[in-house]
């Protein structure tokens, strides 16, 4: 049975929290933004994010994932290259991918940022490459790996 209640406000009966049951999904498109405009909740959510330590200077051992969201695996593919597998795939390969890489991720090398970018983009996977300024691939500390776009 489909139930529908039309109201303008839903306020907490007690306290300040309204809970949506864990097993239910909230299906909302429009959200009132900071001013007068509205924005799209689904489009505004990051669909995947991660950090990955290819050298092990930050997380203790080479090839270790840090915090992740919606990631199946991150693989140390070869020097300066990592492969990321998304758990719940994107609908196609035209999602927006941004990432940053740093030689070490440590204060001792704080000025050693690296060239990086994504390639081999598919709905469920992509590859990131990091290079030193002389063009050589180099293992690094990856942070700010972010995907925005449409889930399948």
């Amino acid at each position, binding site marked *: *049975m489909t139930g529908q209640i*039309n*109201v*303008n*406000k*839903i*306020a907490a*009966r*007690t306290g300040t929290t*309204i809970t*949506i*049951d864990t*097993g*239910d999904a*909230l*299906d*909302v*498109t*429009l*959200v*009132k*933004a*900071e*001013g*007068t*405009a*509205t*924005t799209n*909740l689904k*489009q*505004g*959510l*990051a669909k995947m994010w991660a950090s990955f330590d290819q050298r092990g200077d930050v997380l203790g051992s080479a090839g270790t994932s840090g915090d992740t969201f919606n990631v199946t695996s991150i693989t140390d593919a070869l020097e300066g*290259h990592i492969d990321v597998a998304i758990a719940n795939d994107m609908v196609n390969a*035209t*999602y*927006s*991918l*941004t990432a*940053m890489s740093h030689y070490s991720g440590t204060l001792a090398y704080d000025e050693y940022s690296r*060239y*990086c*970018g*994504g*390639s*081999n*983009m598919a709905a469920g996977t992509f*590859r990131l*490459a*990091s*290079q030193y*300024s*002389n*063009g050589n*691939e180099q293992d690094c500390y990856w942070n*700010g790996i*972010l995907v*925005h*776009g*449409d889930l399948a």
Partner: protein
Amino acid sequence: MSTIFANKIKNNQGGNNVRINQLSGIDTAGSITVQSEGNATTNLQQGLCKSWALTDQTTPEVLDSFNQASMTDTSTGIVTWTMTNIFSSTNWVASSSTHADNTTNAKSMVHSGTRTSSGTPSDKTSAGTSWYAKNSSHSGYDSEVVGHMAYGDLV
């Protein structure tokens, strides 16, 4: 205006969608607090990406985007972005990532960011900006995989 007071909203069959057409805060329309993964709370509106895009500048072509009104291939390595719903100031946060080729083991060798002049954003407005991608020789470079995103306060 009608108000319902409740602490829980549940689909009457469970495990299904609870549908709402548009969410606004009651006390402040553009501010809704969301329980985070632990004990802390976070702000729904502040955490939303307000615009993103994937562009192939070699074509040039916008492959997918959100809240983007236009993309202009201004010159080699430079794309200029405008938004449909714009920010309330120029202090929004931008991030980009660029790869020269969308092929196996290709080298990135392109760095990108909002276009600046002596460290000052040269054409960043509340409605968009130019993004400048350069190769290792610091020359403008058109890339196949250009990801952009923007966070901040909409008007």
